[in-house]
């Protein structure tokens, strides 16, 4: 068994001992449960990894970093859409906290186009709405939203009390849709559903697919048309990816859902390929678009320069057009040297340093590429809310048991669309492409790409984070805003990989350069040397001063 990563951080760290230490303070039942979610990475010769506990309920009181279903549905998937009025049906908090706090950038072509990103719409439920029901207020709120804003579409997001008091947001949506003549649809994304944001992704996927996808048959003018799925344009990531794709001559029909519009969702069924960035949040839509409309999907990753080049080549390979292949190679050749120059310089200062990544449901994997490109090592990583397929690869999907906490998340039945189903490739073509190494409908997961003996931790707690820092003393820890300052106070640089600490883009070629420089800035900043005042370093005066 390779202990490569351990050699770099001192001879004494045994991951099994670390795991024991992470668990020892918990009550016995909690320790048993957490034990399944902490896995020492072992990859066998076929690339298989041991199963990890994931997508299970959170231990009460453990100080999790997880959020809720509403956050996954409204905050993540539908929040970034710029021309739909998103009404939060609930008390004010949920709407308030998801108001502009995720950095999904939007850009319209002029002031005439709708952009509701800067607005927060809420029914601001009061106690009388809890007692007598909130449907009447919801209807009135939809009417007022229509009167004030005249949007193309309105969607409604349910919060915790809505399900409990039995407000039927879907029937309200149907009634108001009839009345106002615009598309209005609701989401039952109450915060207590499922065990994390993940349930909200699924609910959002179902809703957008049922109510919007396929409603607009306009065909985009572009030779090669793709959808970019699971890219939310944090800090302009989507803009950078669009720049590169456009340079290659690839048209993006729709992005789910960074800088997206209602119409883009509505004609996403006209693309010829789905390129999936964030597997966790959008794999449902990818599968449904394939079943109903015949559009295949591939997993791509635009985080990291090499990953970006590889993803472009995969897309080109799919379209089987030498002209596109040539163009893609030209673009890579044009972009890479600039990136390489920065990478080499930064690598000289970062090589051998240790990183840890605990991020949502995809970035803990994607960003490992960027760190590796500058010679850094990942000693530990994990997701807040990913499922086993994100850790171990999609091949384990048949083995995943849906437990009681997630059983009530709707699975929708999707069938071939009689009129619009159109297989983009023949079976023979697909087979051929697979033979040439392009894999469809597949994601290998994070663990097979990590080092042996790295610690993989699902739903890491505050306690476990502190222990990891104490034991491994990493050079950088990546997570979110809630973790940031506790880690920084421990004297360890902390990079937010949700908000990018207001930086970015980090995707694509320009993004890679931004990220290299940012990590260099952080791990090599002088400030980490200044924490101790001089009078604590040398408390005893070696000679007496005499003031005369």
């Amino acid at each position: 068994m390779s202990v490569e990563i351990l050699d770099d951080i001192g001879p004494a760290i045994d991951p099994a001992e670390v795991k024991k230490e992470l668990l020892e303070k918990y009550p016995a039942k909690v320790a048993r449960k957490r034990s399944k979610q902490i896995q020492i990475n072992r990859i066998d010769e076929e690339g298989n990894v041991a199963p990890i506990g994931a997508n299970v309920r959170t231990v009460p009181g453990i100080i999790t970093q997880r959020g809720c279903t509403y956050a996954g549905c409204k905050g993540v998937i539908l929040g970034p859409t710029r021309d739909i009025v998103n009404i939060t049906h609930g008390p004010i908090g949920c709407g308030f906290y998801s108001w502009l706090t995720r950095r999904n950038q939007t850009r319209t072509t002029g002031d005439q186009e709708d952009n509701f990103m800067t607005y927060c719409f809420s029914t601001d439920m009061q106690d009388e709405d809890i007692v007598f029901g909130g449907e009447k207020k919801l209807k009135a709120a939809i009417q007022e939203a229509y009167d004030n804003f005249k949007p193309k579409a309105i969607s409604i997001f349910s919060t915790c009390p809505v399900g409990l008091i039995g407000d039927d947001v879907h029937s309200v949506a149907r009634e108001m849709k009839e009345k106002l003549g615009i598309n209005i649809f609701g989401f039952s994304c109450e915060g207590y559903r499922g065990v994390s944001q993940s349930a909200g992704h699924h609910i959002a996927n179902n809703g957008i697919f049922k109510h919007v996808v396929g409603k607009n048959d306009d065909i985009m003018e572009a030779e090669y048309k793709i959808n970019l799925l699971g890219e939310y344009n944090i800090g302009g990531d989507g803009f950078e990816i669009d720049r590169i794709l456009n340079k290659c001559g690839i048209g993006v029909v729709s992005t789910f859902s960074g800088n997206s519009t209602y119409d883009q969702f509505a004609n996403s069924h006209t693309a010829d390929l789905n390129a999936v960035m964030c597997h966790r949040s959008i794999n449902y839509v990818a599968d449904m678009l394939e079943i109903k409309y015949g559009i295949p999907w591939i997993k791509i990753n635009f985080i990291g320069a090499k990953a970006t080049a590889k993803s472009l080549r995969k897309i080109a390979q799919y379209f089987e057009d030498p002209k596109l292949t040539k163009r893609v190679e030209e673009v890579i050749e044009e972009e890479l040297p600039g990136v390489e120059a920065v990478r080499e310089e930064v690598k000289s200062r970062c090589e051998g340093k240790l990183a840890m990544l605990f991020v949502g449901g995809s970035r803990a994997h994607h960003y490992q590429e960027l760190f590796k490109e500058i010679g850094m090592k990942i000693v530990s990583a994990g997701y807040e809310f990913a499922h086993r397929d994100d850790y171990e690869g999609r091949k384990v999907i048949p083995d995943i048991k849906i437990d009681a906490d997630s059983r009530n998340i709707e699975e929708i039945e999707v069938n071939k669309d009689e009129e619009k189903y159109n297989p983009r490739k023949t079976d023979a073509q697909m087979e051929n492409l697979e033979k040439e190494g392009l894999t469809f409908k597949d994601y290998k997961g994070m663990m097979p790409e990590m080092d042996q003996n790295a610690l993989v931790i699902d739903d890491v707690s505050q306690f476990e984070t502190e222990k990891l820092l104490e034991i491994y003393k990493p050079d950088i820890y990546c997570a979110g805003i809630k973790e940031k300052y506790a880690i920084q106070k421990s004297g360890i640089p902390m990079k937010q990989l949700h908000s990018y600490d207001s930086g970015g883009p980090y995707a694509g070629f320009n993004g890679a350069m931004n990220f290299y420089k940012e990590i260099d800035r952080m791990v090599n900043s002088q400030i980490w040397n200044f924490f101790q005042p001089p009078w604590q370093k040398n408390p005893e005066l070696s000679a007496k001063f005499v003031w005369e």
Partner: protein
Amino acid sequence: MLLRHTNKDIKIRKALTVNPAKTCQPIGAMYAALGVHNCLPHSHGSQGCCAYHRSALTRHFREPVMAATSSFTEGSSVFGGQANLIQAIDTIFNAYDPDVIAVHTTCLSETIGDDVSQIVNKALADGKIPPGKRVIHASTPSYVGSHVTGFATMAKSMAIQFAEKTGESNGCFNIVPGYVEPSDMAEIKRMVMELGIKPIMWPDTSNVLNGPQTGKYKMFPSGGVTTDELKSSADSLGSIALGELASADAVRALDSLHRVPCQVLDLPIGLLATDRFIDALRTVAGVSVPETVNTERGQLIDVITDMHQYFYGKKVALVGDPDHLIPLTEFLVSLDMKPCHIVTGTPGKSFERRINEITAGLDCKVNVKAGGDMYLLHQWIKNEPVDLLLANTYGKYIARDEDLPFVRYGFPILDRVGHSYFPTTCYKGGIRLLEKMLDVLLERQDRDAPEESFELVM
């Protein structure tokens, strides 16, 4: 335009809130609980609330904000959250070892009707609360009031669940400082001590949410009111609450339970409200005001007289919490400014009455609304433009669209630092507020001045 859909045409809205000027109760309770030494706040609901509240406070303070949650699932939402809370208490004491867990609720646990008091008793009976440790609780339904209400409820719970009367006076005065910054809490405490009065102040987030970087993380920082102080609050000579909404409930509860006489004042923001605060302290404690305090007051007045020309007649729009806006409006009026559009998201009738009283002498129309939102405020500004906007960070969108000089004030401030280190209360804080307003007003004059009237001396 960032807020391109906001126009002059004000349609009456009864159901839809757009760009709220408030948030929900539990975050206020969480903030208050962080003002107790060695205390871990706990959110009894689904975990999304806790994540959001921690994130919002963290973004505002740029400090660790720790809190645990009961992490309700669909099952517990139907059958009640007792098992979740008891398991949480057990896990928390084992893994994190606080002295106190301060539980608040959310719209979820309130709607299903969990009896937290009974659950805590059960945890105690089951031996899940170690000897010497305490679990206190406050009921904070998100569908009533606002974040300020949540703060008030937790501040009250702290007092009534800890206070033990021994009958022997501790010689102290209780001070409840209101929903203000750690810097303000420190400043209020400093003023009280400057007068020679011994305070018991709760909550106190100074040195909790504006702590130092030392290279060592402490989950429970050095600040916070201690449980011994809270116990002793029943033996104090009297209590002063600053801010009717955030603080009055706590001191009134102590008055009725333990006969500690109380007085409720406005937050000491600006000249006149600070005067009333100092005068009240002097009177109740029977002390004289030291020269140092007179000097600070004189310095504030000095800045006003020096720079009055830049304030005079300027129209101001304000949005924030009632306890802040009342003395702030009074301060602006005392500078001969015209606060003419004033919105708070927190409901309550007395707010509009107080503002109307304070602005009665102004020769302009004053729009005021409690339970309003920032969309309405923006529409008012479009109809009647102003010279200055004071608001939390969300105001920057209005400020940019309308090209307004803008001072960040209140909660949350997500895009600047300073608020947690430098107070805006008492005389010193008054000077800081003036400095901030002057900065943006004079920057604007500099920016817009034709070259020939670009001034060196202003």
